[in-house]
């Protein structure tokens, strides 16, 4: 499949350099701890911002007959080299206030030295340095191409930091962590490249050249060291080093190196002999070194370590995604003009391809002539009778990269007029523009050809939905085949163990509804409203149930159906039985943490999650429940729990509508009766939650729409956009 130039570069660069990057990141993580361990040494004894240089210089002069040099490092440790009264030389850390010797300079750790050496040259000296520098640059390019991919994916630069939809682990975290560590990685790579340039003398040399006029140099007027204005006015925090005059000759002077300047000072009069600004190159070298190594800052060192760990993850997840993609490639047995069936695929990351391939194989097995290709490679198909388009939608309802020219190609390509087409859209309902591109294609093709089967959408790569479509479609073709699910099945992962605690009996309920309580491991975090996916046959077929959390356990409200896969499975479980299921987070259907008022609307088993929410309504947010059931007897199952909630004030009002009793009422009717109240609570930012059947949802939304229009003069969408409406219907 064609992939965009950016994705291709992103991958190609990564492939070409990942070994070096891997080594550099691992050693980088280790090295991040060096500045941390240095900084933790106890030699920062005074505040260098309040101490002037003259104080330090004179206290050293008073204490030691000979002072060679004083240096201040990135950790604000003061290092000096002096000779004591008894003729011993002392090199080490000193207290800048008292000139008291603190400790010998720490020998650079052999281990860190060894790792540093490996990090910058892989023990290959010059050649190694070159490669490491080059890979640093490549990593920079990878980061930039990654940035562009994220921007494209999110739709625009503005939305760069908006929510990423979690479709699969590697992809999701690759994007999320990529965004977060982008800036540190760019800094690491640029400084890394800069440091390499420096090693290879590509940058101009940062030397300061002083010119001292020795003809006019004078020993008078003599000034006390403490009175040197330049020393008095310089805080120790600005100083990098002071080199003391070599001898008593007036030609020997103090060399004072500040953060941005180098100054020569007459040792007798204190006058400034020469002052040179540090060249920009030197400034950048210093900055690069500190930013690249984290010297002097624990927080930055930690950020660098985390960024390096992320790089390792990117290498892993990037390759995992690539492998997955390459599994799905298109191969053909027949030429395009021989085929009766033409399958065209639009996919951004290849996840639609397995579906297309399965269909292709089935048609081949059925003895048909099939041709499979990408949407962008659309051309004339002389003998084609049926065109099948399987496509994903990318970003905000846009075409995937290998399909972005298709709509234009349809216009410009000559094709049989009697061609029939069928479109299948793949997508996720969590995107606002669900399968939009598929619909766009359908509209476009309608202008030219005849529709075979109606456009069909598939949520979350559902194998079942695809199976449904193939049945409809193959029937329309007079073909008989079943797709082999095995090739499409992704084994459910992250299964959690659950134990059956309680179960009510189906036979005792007039609607064959039962409650089942499951005990998860204590560590499992979930909320009422989350979904539990169970796998009755331990294969691809999953069934979702809304969870009500009660006393830390999961309570599901299940309607038993004759031959129903999930309900049969759950009903057959005995107390204390254990089984595995997957927890699916559903944060858009959580009970609000704060709200003026909440209205819960449910019918049938839709009450399941609400039971848990009410149970945990410890803040006693004013909550009303509109519940639709069939008969009075249906209510028995929930009666006890709901009465308790009312007496605890967790539930303020229960409005029960029974559809199979004498006066036949539905929740819609009950809502309509309370229209004024509902309109008012919506205005006061109250929240409405709906759970139950799609039929009920449709009815309820109709009523709410009417209420809003009549009393509030606003469409329901107004409140929906303000997140005042939460729904989970099936």
């Amino acid at each position: 499949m064609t992939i965009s130039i950016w994705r291709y570069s992103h991958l190609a660069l990564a492939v070409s350099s990942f070994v070096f990057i891997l080594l550099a990141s691992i050693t980088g993580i280790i090295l991040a701890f060096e500045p941390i361990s240095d900084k933790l040494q106890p030699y920062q004894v005074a505040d260098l911002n309040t101490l002037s240089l003259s104080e330090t210089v004179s206290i050293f002069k008073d204490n030691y007959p000979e002072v060679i040099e004083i240096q201040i490092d990135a950790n604000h440790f003061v290092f000096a080299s002096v000779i004591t009264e008894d003729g011993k030389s002392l090199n080490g850390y000193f207290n800048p206030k008292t000139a008291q010797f603190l400790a010998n300079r720490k020998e650079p750790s052999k281990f860190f030295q060894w790792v540093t050496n490996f990090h910058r040259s892989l023990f290959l000296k010059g050649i190694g340095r070159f490669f490491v520098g080059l890979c640093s640059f490549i990593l920079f390019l990878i980061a930039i191409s990654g940035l562009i991919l994220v921007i494209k994916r999110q739709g625009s630069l503005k939305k760069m930091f908006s929510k990423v939809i979690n479709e699969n682990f590697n992809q999701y975290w690759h994007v999320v962590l990529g965004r977060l560590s982008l800036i540190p990685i760019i800094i690491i790579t640029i400084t890394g490249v800069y440091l390499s340039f420096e090693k290879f003398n590509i940058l101009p040399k940062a030397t300061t050249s002083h010119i001292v006029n020795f003809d006019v140099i004078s020993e008078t007027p003599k000034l006390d060291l403490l009175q040197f204005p330049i020393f008095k006015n310089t805080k120790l925090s600005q100083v990098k080093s002071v080199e003391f005059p070599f001898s008593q000759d007036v030609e020997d002077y103090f060399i004072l190196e500040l953060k941005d300047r180098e100054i020569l000072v007459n040792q007798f009069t204190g006058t400034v002999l020469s002052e040179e600004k540090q060249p920009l190159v030197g400034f950048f070298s210093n900055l690069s070194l500190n930013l690249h190594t984290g010297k002097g800052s624990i927080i930055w060192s930690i950020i660098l370590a985390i960024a390096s760990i992320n790089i390792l993850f990117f290498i892993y997840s990037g390759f995992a995604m690539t492998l997955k993609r390459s599994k799905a490639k298109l191969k053909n047995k027949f030429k395009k003009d021989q085929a009766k069936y033409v399958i065209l695929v639009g996919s951004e990351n290849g996840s639609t391809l397995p579906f297309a391939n399965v269909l292709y194989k089935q048609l081949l097995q059925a003895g048909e002539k099939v041709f499979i290709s990408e949407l962008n490679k659309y051309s004339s198909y002389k003998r084609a009778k049926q065109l099948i388009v399987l496509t994903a939608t990318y970003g905000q309802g846009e075409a995937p990269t290998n399909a972005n020219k298709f709509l234009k190609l349809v216009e410009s390509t000559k094709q049989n007029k009697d061609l029939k087409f069928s479109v299948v859209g793949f997508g996720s309902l969590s995107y606002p523009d669900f399968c939009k591109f598929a619909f766009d294609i359908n509209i476009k093709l309608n202008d030219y050809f005849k529709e075979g089967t109606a456009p069909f959408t598939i949520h979350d790569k559902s194998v079942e939905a695809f199976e449904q479509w193939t049945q409809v479609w193959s029937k329309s073709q007079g073909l008989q085949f079943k797709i082999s699910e095995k090739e499409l099945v992704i084994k459910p992962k992250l299964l959690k163990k659950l134990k059956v605690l309680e179960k009510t009996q189906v036979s005792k309920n007039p609607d064959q509804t039962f409650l089942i309580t499951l005990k998860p491991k204590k560590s499992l975090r979930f909320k009422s409203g989350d979904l539990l996916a169970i796998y009755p046959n331990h294969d691809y077929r999953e069934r979702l149930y809304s969870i009500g959390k009660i006393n830390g356990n999961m309570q599901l409200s299940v309607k038993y159906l004759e031959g129903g896969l999930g309900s049969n499975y759950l009903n057959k479980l005995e107390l204390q039985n254990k089984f595995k299921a997957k927890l699916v987070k559903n944060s858009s259907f959580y009970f609000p943490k704060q709200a003026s008022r909440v209205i819960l609307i449910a019918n049938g088993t839709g009450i399941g999650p609400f039971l848990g929410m009410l149970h945990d309504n410890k803040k006693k947010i004013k909550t009303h429940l509109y519940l639709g059931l069939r008969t009075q007897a249906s209510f028995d199952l929930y009666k006890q729990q709901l009465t308790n909630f009312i007496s605890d004030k967790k539930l303020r009002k229960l409005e029960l509508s029974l559809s199979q009793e004498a006066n036949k009422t539905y929740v819609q009717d009950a809502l309509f009766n309370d229209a004024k109240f509902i309109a008012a609570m919506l205005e006061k930012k109250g929240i409405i939650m709906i759970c139950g059947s799609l039929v009920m949802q449709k009815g309820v939304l109709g009523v709410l729409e009417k209420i809003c229009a009549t009393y509030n003069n606003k469409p329901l969408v107004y409140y929906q956009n303000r997140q005042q409406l939460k729904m989970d219907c099936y």
Partner: protein
Amino acid sequence: MKVKQFLLIVIATLGLLSVTSFKETTKYKCMIQMTNYTGEAAYVVISLINPQGEYEKTLYVQGDDDEWYHDISDWWKFYGKKRGNLDAITGATIAGGARTISVIDIEDSKIDAGYSIRFETAVEDQEYYTKDVQFPLTSENVKSKQDGTGFIRYIRMMPN
């Protein structure tokens, strides 16, 4: 006879002791100013050379990464065999154009006794100068300025 032998031994040991304990040393400040060459910072080794022209003692090493010591090949032939402890007399390498002041210890008995001091320099991927600076240790020379022939522009020495 026995007494005579005993006396001899006593005298000999005393003599030896006096020689070893009579190691009066003086500290010298020594400034190394490098030329403006480009490339890696230089390793500089300061050694005491005996009247026969052989290494006698390592006085100072500018450069603390001992992985590179073998590149300073002449000195390495002397030092590499025993590998004494250099911790107290090592400093950082010196970059082109930079200068460094270090303090070295020289026994007074070596002054005006035919001994010399040698500064040898080596830079990664560049030349190696065995005798960048070398001059006899005379009481005159130890407070002088001497020009270098390689990476060193000049050195200055001064007794402390």
